[in-house]
Each structure stands twice: as C-alpha cells, then as structure tokens.
C-alpha cells in the first residue's frame, strides 16, 4: 500500500491555508521542525510565533490571539498540545469557546521509538469530554488536508488528531470532510467496523480478510469524533447488529466509548473494541507496537467474529 506522512501533509496544508486565511497564525512550543512547519515559519514570519518549550503558555497565547479575531493554530505533538496543557485548554479555550485550532501530530502509540512519555493514548477521551470542543481524527495524509480545511471553516475550538509518519493511503483523492458526518467506506450486512485515524486502513484490510471468510463488513471512518455521527452509528447498528470500534487509543473513553454511548442509548447491540488495553505503551517501531498492542487487521477480524457471535447468541435466546 502507498503511504504518506501526517506531519508533512499538515505542514503543506498550513502553507496553502495561510494564503486563504489572512488571519491564520501558527503558534508552537518549539516544535516547528518536528511538525514540519519550518517552511511556514520562513514564508510567514509575521504570522508565526514560537513561545519556546512552554506548552501552557502556548495555549494561553493562542487564546489571546483568538480574542483579537485572529485564527491561531497550535501545532505540536498531541502529548504537548493537549495533555500537558489540558487545564489551560479547558478554562481559556473551551469554556470561553475561543476560535483556537489545535492540530496535533504524534497521537497514539504510532509515535513509536520515543516511547510511552510521548505517546498520547488518552487524548480523545479528555478532549471530547470538554463542552464546546470539536474532535477530529484524520485517517491518512490526504484526509489530513481536508480535515485542516474543515477545522478552519468551523468557528470554535477544534482538536485535530493526527499520526506521525507512515500513513497508509485510505483516500487516493480528496473527499469533502463534513463535521458530524461519518464516511462510509464500504457497505456490508454482517458487521460494522467503526474506526478512526490509522486504524481505518487496518479496518479496510480487515474487510478483505472477513470477505474471504464470507463475512460482509461495513467500514466507517469516524473522522468526526465530536460531534459524532449518531445517525450513521444507529443505522449501522440496526442494519448489522454487531459493532467493532478500532482506534490507536486506550479503550477507556475514546472512539469506542463515544460509539458505546450512542448505541447504549439508541440501539443496544454487541460492541467489541480494538484499542489499547488499560496500560501505557513503550518504545518500538510503529509496526511492532501495533502488533504487540493488538492494533491490527487480524485483531479487527477476531473482534468482528466475537461481535457477530454475541449478536447471534442473543438472537437465539
């Protein structure tokens, strides 16, 4: 499969958007090089602010910029963009509903060799718990671009969760990114896999494996985690009666939690999660980590079969 890089795509798209949005300002806590916005810094020095290694300050500065009508983009690693300065985001961005965009690369254990301290695996849970906050996740490099544009079109705080490099191609061409609307990549009648980020590519691979075994899967890219597409979830849950969620995130409070909240209320069906168990990551390559922590197409296949078995068992009773 072809691959792209989340951070290269982010850097390139911000350059394009700088032309479209005169009010776009990038703020970073000494991570311009690492999130590939060096070119932006060179081309738009007056709209680029480095605050040094100070993440709390970074969020406060972004909030202040937003009060003047500018559109600040905080670009950093997920750990340092949202987990370290969470309280500043809560009180100075989300609560006053300021138009701050937080575009974070390096979300999940896909970070790899830097290890657990740099792997944000709780970010979806904490960010979607914030009122006023929109939470997005891009599946590949192409979707990184459309997600950036959707985030900038929206007025209000947005958290965009991105991986690092090695993004398998899900979209060979751009497709409109609509907040609150899921993207149904494949329609099947036996089971629904709802994935986000890098796990979308794994879900598509799982669909092929499942198909070989005579199981027809619906694959949903839930790129808008908040607001979440309730209608799509309920429809898929009613149609297939078995749901699997897949994410590079702890199984507590992430995409799985968000989907579970919807189906528990509106359409209770068996739900299986492919996610990181309640533990921290470690150093290793992305592929090794995904294998060890169960974030693979094979895990999705197994989870799909469990969900189908539970559904069939309850139908028999």
């Amino acid at each position: 499969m072809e691959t792209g890089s989340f951070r290269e795509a982010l850097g390139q798209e911000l350059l394009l958007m700088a032309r479209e949005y005169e009010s776009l300002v990038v703020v970073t806590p000494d991570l311009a090089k690492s999130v590939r916005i060096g070119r932006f810094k060179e081309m738009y020095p007056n709209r680029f602010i480095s605050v040094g290694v100070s993440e709390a300050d970074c969020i406060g500065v972004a909030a202040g910029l937003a009060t003047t009508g500018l559109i600040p983009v905080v670009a950093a690693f997920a750990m340092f963009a949202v987990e370290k300065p969470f309280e500043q985001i809560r009180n100075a961005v989300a609560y006053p509903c300021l138009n701050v965009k937080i575009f974070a690369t390096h979300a999940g254990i896909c970070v790899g060799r830097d290890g657990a301290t740099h792997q944000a695996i709780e970010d979806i849970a904490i960010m979607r718990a914030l009122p006023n906050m929109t939470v997005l996740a891009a599946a590949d490099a192409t979707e990184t671009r459309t997600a950036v544009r959707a985030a900038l079109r929206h007025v209000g705080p947005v958290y965009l969760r991105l991986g690092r490099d090695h993004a398998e191609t899900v979209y060979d061409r751009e497709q409109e990114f609509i907040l609150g609307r899921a993207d149904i990549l494949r329609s099947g009648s036996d089971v629904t896999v709802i994935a986000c980020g890098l796990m979308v590519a794994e879900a598509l691979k799982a669909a092929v494996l499942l198909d070989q075994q005579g199981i027809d899967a619906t694959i949903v890219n839930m790129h808008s985690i908040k607001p979440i597409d309730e209608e799509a979830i309920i429809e898929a849950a009613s149609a297939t009666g078995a749901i699997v969620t897949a994410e590079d995130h702890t199984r507590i409070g992430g995409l799985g939690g968000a989907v579970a909240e919807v189906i528990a209320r509106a359409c209770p069906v068996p739900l299986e999660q492919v996610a990181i168990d309640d533990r921290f990551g470690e150093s290793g390559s992305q592929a090794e980590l995904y294998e060890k922590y169960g974030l693979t197409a094979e895990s999705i296949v197994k989870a799909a079969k469990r969900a189908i078995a539970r559904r069939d068992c309850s139908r028999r009773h």
Partner: protein
Amino acid sequence: MPFDQETVAELQNRSRQIRRDILEMVHAIQSGHPGGSLSIVEILLVLYRKKMRIDPQDPHSQDRDRFVLSKGHCAPALYAVLADMGYFPKEALKESFRRINGMLQGHPDMNKTPGIDMTTGSLGIGLSVGCGMAFGARILGKDFRVYVLTGDGELNEGQVWEAAKTAAHHRLDNLTVIVDANGYQNDGPTRVEMNMEPLAEKWRAFGWDVQEVDGHSIEQLSSAFDQVPAPSGRPTAIICRTVKCKGVSFMEEDKVKYHGTPPDGEQLSQALSELGC
C-alpha cells in the same frame, strides 16, 4: 500627564464608592473574595477611568485597549468598576453576582458580561493570554495596549514566568503586567507561604522594565502608566504595593480570613461607616 488635584479627589471619592459596592455585593450573596478586591480598587479606577482607550458603548471595538483580570477571583472589584463605567446597570451587582442565571459569574466571563475581555479564574493563565492579545495587535497593525493584573500569590504559578519570558523575548512593549502585591495568598502571608521576593529583581531578570509604586496612590499609579510603553521596547511590570482588605479596619486586621469571607450585616454597617459612604 500628572493628575490635577481635582482628578485625584474625584478618583478617591469613586474608590470609596467602589469599595462600598464590593462589600455590598459579597454581603448580598454571602460569597466571594473581598480582600483582594479591596486591594485593586485604585489600580482599576486609574486604568478604566483615565488610562485605557475604551468605550463602554462599544465593548467589542477592535481598537480598544484590553484588560485581563488574571486574578479572576477579585471579580467584584472589576464588576463594580465596569458598572460605574456604564458597561451594565449597577443593579446587576447585587442582583446577579454569583447567582443562578446571573450575568456576573463568580469569576469573569467574557461571554456573559459586557466589558470583560477575557474569561479568567484559574490562576496563572492571564499573562499568556495578554501576550496573545499583544501579538494580535502587532499582527493586525493596531496600537491597542494590553494590561494584565495578577496577584502576588499568583506569581507562584510557573505559567506566569513562561509568559514573562515570551513577552520579553518578543519585546511586547504594548503589554503591561500589574502585580497586586498585597502580601497575602489563600493560606497566609506570601513571605510565609511562598516567598517570591524580590519581585522587582525577578521581573527585571526576565527582561522587563519594572516600576514599583504604592498601589493605592492615584498619583503614583498614573505616573507609572504614563511611562508605558517603555522606550527600551521591553514590556512593563508595575509592582503595586497594596494592602489586602484596604479601607476596612477589622478586615485589614484579619486578612487571611477576609480573603474569601464576606462581612455579615453588622460588619457591613461598620465597614460602610468607616468608608464614610
């Protein structure tokens, strides 16, 4: 320009009225922080009445000067001054402060109260926000100024110093921090709880122009604000030596208690008679 006698007397009169409003407000709801509100009255009056470029009829003007009450728990003082300026009716002070569905929240809320430029309450964040506003002026080519008021207890927060280095490094000369150095924090005297002295040397070391004034002297405050922006191109820190609970004798005698305790009815009467209003 130095104030004439008349201006000083007018602001002094107003300061008595503002103190009365603060006490009545926290008394009415039996909740809020009188001590640190009473120590910033003159600072707010000099800024809002005489120094800031603002228009209460147009609270969202792009060109207005900005004020961030980083020590947001002292909202009663800010609300009283905003009402006095005409941002909203004075009746709101007693009818709304800290009450359900009220426009005057326990801590300042930019989306609920006209005249509030930034939502605050969690200590340490305001100076970073002020930096962002000051950057905003620079990027937008505007000449507005930004004032951030912090407490001296608040200076314990690491983020204040993160912001201090950002403002100095980027030479945000349109930014002024005002430190309400009333010498007390929640648990007790700052020298006992967490000593941050020498304050002036700290700000200077971070690359700021520093002035130290009597924070209850209208003349000294006025002349300090007149020296902004500093010719050096540095941001300005004005360290205001103040008295927590200023103006009410029994409160000044028990500053730790009156950090967050409102007066009862009898105490309110005594306080108002002391203030002579």
